């Protein structure tokens, strides 16, 4: 653990004089380990060039580095590299599907989206529905913040052409049984898009085993630079999609009047791609793949259990968990409300102890509306978190309650 913490330069400094950082906002952005930073610095100082355009040495190094990054992501997801598209982020990846695949849907078709979704996996479908005259089907959640599996077979009927659900909720932490949802979707003739933004940082994935058709993730949540994300899709699906953006790299041939396009993945990577961010993402995938993720998850869930117990002890019946209370099928993240305190006020007071939690609706207003609250506070863990982080968080919450409820 100490060795893992040492890999993160940001943990080495105090956040204010004498106040060490207790970073529990990993769900918003993952911290960058040194090997990723080193890979970026090496790239910018020894291999910086545009890709696929020039034959000089720097351009070759850059092109190789970019190709290697795609290979690293493909290995992390267990898919062929040519099915991996680099995007600007998870949000851009979902919007690409909503536009380019969405334009293949016909008025009257339906898209099924869960109440649990991050705005990134809801608003693009609203926009698509408005643009193409489609129906949005609402997949409900259970009282403890999980996708309601019992409701799916009835709601996912023949009109539904695409189901969009998160692999794990960024608010409740609930993990979706993707293979089961995939079976239901496919039985109805629908495709399944899975939002892996929260799941991907917790270790390598086996997308073929999940059985979904599209998968998206964001680099920064894995500790890579901002500005890169991934869309994975089955090749024939990608190959049937028109490009969303036009420009360099995505063409086969251009005349003034018209152009022909390259095959995927290039077709969807118009312009200079996020080369260095992708190189960082490749390094991040290798870094994560080298961790023992079963052990890391057990460690993080043990801390999650301590946090939930501590919250109940301190806040008593003012505590409201936004999500399941148990530790099964969940990520190591906890969202909660303490009655009479506002999440932002709580987080502001925690900050003075170096404890970084996030407060607000976490880009999931629908979910919070179902719970009848405007927002919540969230602690989200990474493998490097330790018992000290949890103790500091609990002490800060006790403190905040004194300030805000006195």
């Amino acid at each position: 653990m100490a060795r893992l913490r040492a890999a993160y330069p940001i943990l080495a400094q105090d956040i204010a004089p004498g106040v060490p950082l207790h970073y529990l906002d990993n769900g918003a952005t993952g911290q960058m380990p040194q090997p990723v930073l080193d890979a970026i610095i090496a790239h910018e100082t020894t291999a910086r060039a545009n890709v696929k355009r020039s034959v000089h040495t720097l351009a070759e190094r850059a092109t190789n580095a970019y190709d290697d990054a795609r290979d690293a992501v493909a290995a992390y997801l267990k898919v062929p590299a040519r099915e991996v598209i680099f995007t600007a982020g998870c949000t851009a990846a979902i919007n690409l599907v909503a536009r380019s695949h969405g334009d293949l849907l016909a008025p009257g078709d339906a898209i099924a989206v869960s109440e649990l979704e991050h705005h990134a996996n809801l608003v693009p479908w609203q926009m698509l529905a408005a643009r193409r005259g489609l129906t949005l089907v609402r997949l409900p959640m259970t009282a403890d913040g999980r996708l309601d599996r019992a409701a799916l077979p009835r709601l996912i009927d023949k009109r539904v052409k695409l189901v969009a659900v998160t692999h794990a909720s960024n608010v409740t932490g609930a993990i979706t049984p993707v293979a089961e949802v995939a079976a239901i979707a496919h039985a109805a003739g629908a495709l399944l898009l899975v939002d892996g933004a929260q799941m991907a940082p917790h270790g390598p994935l086996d997308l073929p085993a999940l059985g979904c058709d599209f998968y998206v993730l964001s680099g920064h949540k894995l500790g890579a630079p901002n500005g890169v994300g991934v869309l994975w899709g089955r090749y024939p699906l990608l190959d049937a999609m028109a490009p969303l953006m036009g420009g360099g790299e995505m063409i086969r041939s251009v005349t003034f009047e018209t152009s022909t396009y390259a095959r995927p993945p290039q077709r969807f990577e118009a312009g200079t791609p996020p080369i260095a961010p992708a190189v960082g993402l490749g390094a991040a995938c290798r870094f994560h793949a080298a961790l023992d993720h079963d052990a890391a998850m057990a460690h993080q869930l043990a801390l999650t259990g301590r946090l939930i117990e501590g919250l109940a002890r301190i806040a008593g019946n003012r505590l409201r968990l936004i999500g399941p209370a148990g530790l099964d099928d969940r990520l190591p993240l906890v969202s909660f409300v303490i009655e009479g305190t506002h999440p932002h006020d709580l987080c502001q007071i925690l900050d003075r102890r170096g404890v970084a939690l996030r407060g607000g609706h976490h880009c999931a207003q629908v979910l919070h509306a179902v719970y009848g609250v405007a927002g919540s506070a969230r602690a989200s863990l990474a493998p490097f978190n330790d018992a000290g982080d949890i103790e500091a968080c609990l002490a800060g919450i006790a403190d905040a309650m004194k300030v805000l409820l006195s």
Partner: protein
Amino acid sequence: MSDELYPRDMLRTASDIRFAGSLPDAGGHATLDNPFCGDRVGFDVTLADGRIKSLRHQVKACVICQASAALLSAEAEGRTADDILDLGDRLMAGLKQDARPLLAGHPAFDLFTGITRHRARFACVLLPFEALEAATREAEKATS
């Protein structure tokens, strides 16, 4: 327990409910969300001679935003929508520059001197100004 950011006065002001509620005869109403936390502030206003005569607020928000709504309500009578806009702009400038007073002529707003280092919270202070301005504009439109 006292505190730089959340002084006792802030909590006391936040729980001042003199102007909470609604106006059945409101000439204008507006509700605005803070898109980053889902907080919500609504205002009802009535005008006399184009100026705010009475008002009530509906606030579901953090302590800072509640306190700001209460202070603003207490100082709003007799003002126009443009006045409110101007007050908000000047308070924003004061927050950015960490000025004293934060808002010239309105020492009560010095309640917020503790947050000048926390830009993310400026929106919490300003949301009531935006909502009251919008409500007043609506009332102005209705009477013009």
